[in-house]
């Protein structure tokens, strides 16, 4: 089916207007490669990598074409044959996939190192000399918006169990994430607090590891599967009613563990057990537990307006686009404004903004037009990648003073009436 309904939903098609940069075009290329009509050459590989993986094409498709699965297969095939990643992309990928994300303690070491780096003045020095800029201007701008990372993860701070406040509504397992846990430890802490306020016993299984999303989306499927099995075991042992994620990108692969492991029948039941229980923090707060009370925005921020930038994976894969809006309306009342095209990708897309800086920046520029037009004080997000990307956009537009990017857990927690 080649109706083209998915084209207007696709950010890369919107930017270029070129058929090959559209879901329909990419699917036709995959098919042509399979049929032997064309070589899966460098350009093919680049086109597959050009896709953000935002999966906005899926809900737009009346025929229910599973684009996400197709692109993963294509990337896996490319990954098995490829020799041509540029050297530094290769380096970043290797560090990220093999050496960093699978190892929680290494991630924390990295966090600690980053902190020293930021506080010691090395950062200022490097910025002044633009040493990173020589390396890659994209890494340089990324470097500028890095948050205060910490050497301590959520378990080190809160332990592995936090009891429910008030009447108990259930037990949830917290998926702490890797990036989330070192770069946004505070957000993780506030997520746990919110859950406990809403009446959940929170368990944070120490044995959990990286979700495997980046691996799966980049063609490293075998490793993604290993990570998945490990997580399933960890949460099954913890005996939880729900598994809560506060990163759309992680959540989306967690709810698809059953698909990821579909070729392994012995994992079938466990994978379904796991996938069924996964909920985004906004969804669980909106649908389960005790409804929370939020204070109005302070008077001096009377004009403070709040808008929401969707996490593509939360919206398109977890189908959880409504819950954050509902919570923000509760917490911010009339100060909530919907920006134009909030559901369209911000260009962060995993490590896309590092591997495809040009397209990523172009998409971010258009996103910032809509953010600026909304005239808001807070841009709320649901995923660390989007959070960083929005910070990057705000920084680039020089409006850091008037505007702030926040994770929804931070925004809600800070307004909680206890």
């Amino acid at each position: 089916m080649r109706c083209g309904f998915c084209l207007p939903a696709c950010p890369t098609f919107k930017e270029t207007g070129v058929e090959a940069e559209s879901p329909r075009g990419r699917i036709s290329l995959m098919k042509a490669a399979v049929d032997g009509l064309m070589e899966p050459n460098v350009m093919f590989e680049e086109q597959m990598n050009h896709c953000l993986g935002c999966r906005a094409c899926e809900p737009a498709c009346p025929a229910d074409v599973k684009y996400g699965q197709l692109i993963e297969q294509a990337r896996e095939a490319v990954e098995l044959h490829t020799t041509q990643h540029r050297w530094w992309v290769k380096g970043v990928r290797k560090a990220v996939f093999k050496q960093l994300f699978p190892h929680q303690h290494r991630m924390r070491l990295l966090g600690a190192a980053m902190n020293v780096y930021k506080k010691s003045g090395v950062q200022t020095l490097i910025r002044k000399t633009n040493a990173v800029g020589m390396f890659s201007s994209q890494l340089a701008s990324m470097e500028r918006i890095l948050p205060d990372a910490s050497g301590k993860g959520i378990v080190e701070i809160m332990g592995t169990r936090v009891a429910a406040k008030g009447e108990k509504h259930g037990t949830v397992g917290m998926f702490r994430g890797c990036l989330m846990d070192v770069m946004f430890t505070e957000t993780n802490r506030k997520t746990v607090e919110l859950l406990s306020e809403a009446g959940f016993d929170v368990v944070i299984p120490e044995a959990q590891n990286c979700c495997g999303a980046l691996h799966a989306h980049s063609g490293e499927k075998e490793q993604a599967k290993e990570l998945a099995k490990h997580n399933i075991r960890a949460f099954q042992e913890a005996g939880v009613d729900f598994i809560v994620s506060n990163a759309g990108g992680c959540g989306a692969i967690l709810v698809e563990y059953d698909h990821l492991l579909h070729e392994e029948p012995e994992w079938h039941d466990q994978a379904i057990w796991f996938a069924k229980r996964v909920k985004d923090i906004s969804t669980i707060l909106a649908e389960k537990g005790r409804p929370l009370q939020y204070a109005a925005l302070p008077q001096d921020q009377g004009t403070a307006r709040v808008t929401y930038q969707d996490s593509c994976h939360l919206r398109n894969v977890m189908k959880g686009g409504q819950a954050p809006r509902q919570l923000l309306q509760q917490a911010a009342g009339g100060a909530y404004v919907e920006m134009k095209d909030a559901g369209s990708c911000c260009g962060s897309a995993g490590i896309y903004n590092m591997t495809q800086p040009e397209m990523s920046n172009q998409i971010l520029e258009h996103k910032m037009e809509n953010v600026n037009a909304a005239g808001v004080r807070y841009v709320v997000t649901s995923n660390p990648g989007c959070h960083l990307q929005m910070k990057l956009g705000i920084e680039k537009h020089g409006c850091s003073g008037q505007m702030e990017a926040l994770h929804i857990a931070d925004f809600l927690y800070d307004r909680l009436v206890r």
Partner: protein
Amino acid sequence: MDSNVKHLLRGIVGDAYFKDDAQSLVTHSYDGTPMLQSLPDGVIYPRNTAEVSAIMKVLHEHRIPLVSRGSGTNLCGGTVPVHGGVVMVMHRMNAIVEVDTQNLTATVQPGIITKQFIEHIEGLGLFYPPDPSSMAISTIGGNIAECSGGLRGLKYGTTKDYVLGLECVLADGQILRTGGKLMKDVAGYDLTKLLIGSEGTLAVITEATLKLIPPPKAKKTMLAMYTDIYGAARTVSSIIENRIIPATLEIMDNPTIRVVDDFAKLGLPLDMAAILLIEQDGEPEMVERDIAKISGICREEQAARISIAETPEEALKLLTARRSAFTALARLRPTTILEDATVPRSKIAEMVLEINRIAEKHNVQICTFGHAGDGNLHPTATTDARDLEEVHRVEAAFEDIFEAAIRLGGTITGEHGVGMVKAPYLEWKVGGPGIQVMEAIKEAFDPHNLLNPGKMFAKESRRRVVIERG
């Protein structure tokens, strides 16, 4: 195509806008039509009329075929480059040149997306009615070249009723202007009308002047549900007979209701054999009166239930869901082949029965939906292209359906055009002399057969079993 020609083409549009890499060729080898594919030799993206003209001069000199392309959503193989050559994508020519609020006209370039144009016009408090179900992605140029109709066709007509003037580039690169902002103009043959629906075989449209009208003041949308599809079809004829012309009058049968609801999650009645989606617009009192009368007629024709949309959003959701019907049917089987048979409106009920009979006879699954109020049905076969035997049965069934449509005084296509798919049947509809005149016109515009060759005119017509006309 030799490298000299490529060099010349790059010289006109710049390196970035002429492509001949494998990726560009593959992604312009198909359109919305199932089972057709053929690679072009190059893809070009012009920016303005002057570039189109210069490109045509080069292609004309070297006798290279050209296929103009909007978004490739057509369903007749209209943009499949069966003879190779160059595919010209009109997307970059997407400006709204002018909206003339004194004359109520808009002048646009052909590559603008229909929905974007409509939204812009509605933002100015005006109305452009043609709304093909593909409007979220189709282009105005493609709409004109196919003479597209839409959900509002019953009351407001189709694209041809809204095109006042055209600018186009002929096969040899000359620029031709037809019509203008005039509401009346009988100077010579009506070339504007001739170009509308010409499927890219006569000229490349580079600009169009369109008629706008004031928007209706009020609107009401309702669903009538039936346990028997014949009852639904009879209602259509009966509404028209009672001299009510709704803005929209669409039919969906049970399998279509199911797949559409699976996609749009609207809570449509899955137990019904058919539903009618009816919208009336105009002055508020008239809308109320018509909707009441229509409800009465639906009840007389044994509608099991009738419901009226509470809010404009709910109404819009229903219309949008209906627009997804064709694609949604792909949920049932891997290959979806849609046809476009049209009969006089009084014959809708008869045609629906014919379709069901034919489906049974050939043992194929045919789902029916369409612009029933226009007499324009889309019987759609859900099949599997890998099963050749079944595909042959589907073809045989469609032949019978065309046959039946013509017998009932109808036609082989109401809006999707002839392209490659219907070419073998064109003679059934227009007859020998019709084909002769059409071929002579083609010859006059395009003597070397460079514009969209292989479309509209088949090498051979299908033999017709029964030669009689209703």
